[in-house]
């Protein structure tokens, strides 16, 4: 009988140790709803420790697509929103979800594809024309299909190119419904073209001979914005801590830190805060 109980007691003790053994989380923290590109590129890993060291505030990042990030912020599940889809961000602020939108930084989108380049778009600097060629060749194109900032940009480019991708969905146009990295993995797997932000691609390891084929069009501009979730709508928002983080990002120190971030020696994000809200 004793043996049985000691065995059970051991199991229970192990369980209790695990239940109570969790790390004590810092009290002073904010939740930032952000996009996968800022996390997957490694930018946030570089910025956040600098800010935390200075302010003592832990920054917890939930990295999802811009569409989901905005939806989460609209549900008051976060203090700061850091995303890249200006029209959607402005709508979010106009609807009372956020206080003010600030330009933070930009980089650009690129179209990557296999070396074989079945649509022959390598070296093009006109994104619309390149997409038209891809559509004409019915070459596979992997889309995020998830309402992310990149997906919204991609749809506006297809619209400008006059291509109805809805009709081709499931045929040469393939909506993965997943994040940027996963979509690149899928695209690489099926030999499809992919529109991606430059930072995610620069940091991506599974390249399988893929290259940047189209870049340099001003339509491929990718603007990031930062917004404090509206404490008037969401009383749980830590307005002071959140605003302090935003102020730091927009300050010379924060902007310099963004500019200093490199992947393979290459600058990935270009700070462009102007202090005035748009």
């Amino acid at each position, binding site marked *: 009988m004793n043996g049985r109980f000691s065995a059970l007691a051991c*199991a229970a003790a192990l369980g209790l140790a695990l239940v109570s*053994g969790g*790390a004590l989380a810092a009290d002073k923290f904010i*939740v930032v709803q952000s996009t996968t590109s800022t996390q*997957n590129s490694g930018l946030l890993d570089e910025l956040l420790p600098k800010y935390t060291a200075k302010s003592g505030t832990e920054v917890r990042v*939930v990295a999802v697509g811009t569409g989901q990030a905005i939806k989460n912020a609209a549900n*008051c599940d976060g203090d700061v929103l850091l995303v890249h889809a200006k029209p959607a961000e402005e709508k979010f602020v106009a609807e009372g979800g956020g206080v003010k939108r600030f330009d933070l930084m930009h980089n650009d989108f690129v179209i990557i594809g296999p070396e074989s380049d079945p649509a022959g778009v390598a070296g093009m600097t006109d994104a619309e024309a390149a997409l038209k060629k891809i559509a004409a060749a019915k070459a596979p194109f992997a889309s995020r299909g998830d309402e992310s900032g990149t997906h919204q940009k991609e749809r506006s480019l297809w619209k400008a190119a006059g291509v109805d991708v809805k009709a081709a969905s499931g045929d040469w146009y393939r909506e993965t419904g997943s994040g940027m*990295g996963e979509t690149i993995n899928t695209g690489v797997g099926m030999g499809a073209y992919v529109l991606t932000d430059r930072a995610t691609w620069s940091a*991506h*390891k599974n390249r399988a001979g893929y290259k940047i084929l189209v870049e340099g069009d001003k339509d491929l501009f990718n603007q990031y914005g930062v917004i404090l979730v509206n404490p008037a709508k969401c009383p749980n928002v830590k307005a002071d801590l959140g605003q302090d983080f935003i102020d730091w990002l927009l300050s010379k120190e924060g902007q310099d830190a963004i500019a200093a971030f490199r992947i393979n020696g290459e600058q990935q994000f270009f700070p462009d805060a102007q202090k005035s809200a748009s």
Partner: protein
Amino acid sequence: MQDFGSAVWQALGLVASFDRDLLEIVLLSLRVSLTAVLAAGLVGLPLGAVLAVLRFPGSGLLVVLLNAMMGLPPVVVGLVLYLLLSHAGVLGPLNLLYTPTAMIVAQAVLVTPIIAALARQTVADIRGEYREQLQVLGVSRRTEVATLLWDARYSLLTAMVAGFGRAIAEVGAVIIVGGNINHVTRVMTTTIALETSKGNLALALGLGMILLSLTILVNAAVQGLRATAARTAYA
């Protein structure tokens, strides 16, 4: 295919170097999943036993539903819990979203039906053997449930282990309610998903191997516990 070789090396390297981040992630995974399984066991085992013993109108339908709930899609459980725990949801004031507690709740919801359904079957099976004895002794239903649960305890460990397998392996629910926040809610499965999305396929696979080893260790520990307990019991 070089990814497989590379994955093994990366996994061994991480383990050998006692990588601190990895240790933190492993411990959180164990803490979340073991707690969820314990909680699910506390509810699921008695529930299963009661369903095995009691017959009432609709009990057959309840068993079908319970068995079907073993197939609850994690991502749906995550979504429903997100909607409840969100600040815009009814449980928002609890401030549980993006915490390990939310992840424990999510996994407990997924695991309870598995433990309850397997416990119900196990208890129903041994009840067939015990029924006459119990009838002769004229024990109450409550004592019957307790007796059957106790006598089936080693078989019921299998139900708990099955529940643990589900909990430690799922990603769909915890990534939604946990948010995969570094140093706060990042567990093995969400790390694997993240590294996959970064294209670090070898590292992701290596982490998968570590996760699998962990599951084997836990199962071995349970097996050892069962053997030791059984030996002492019959010695």
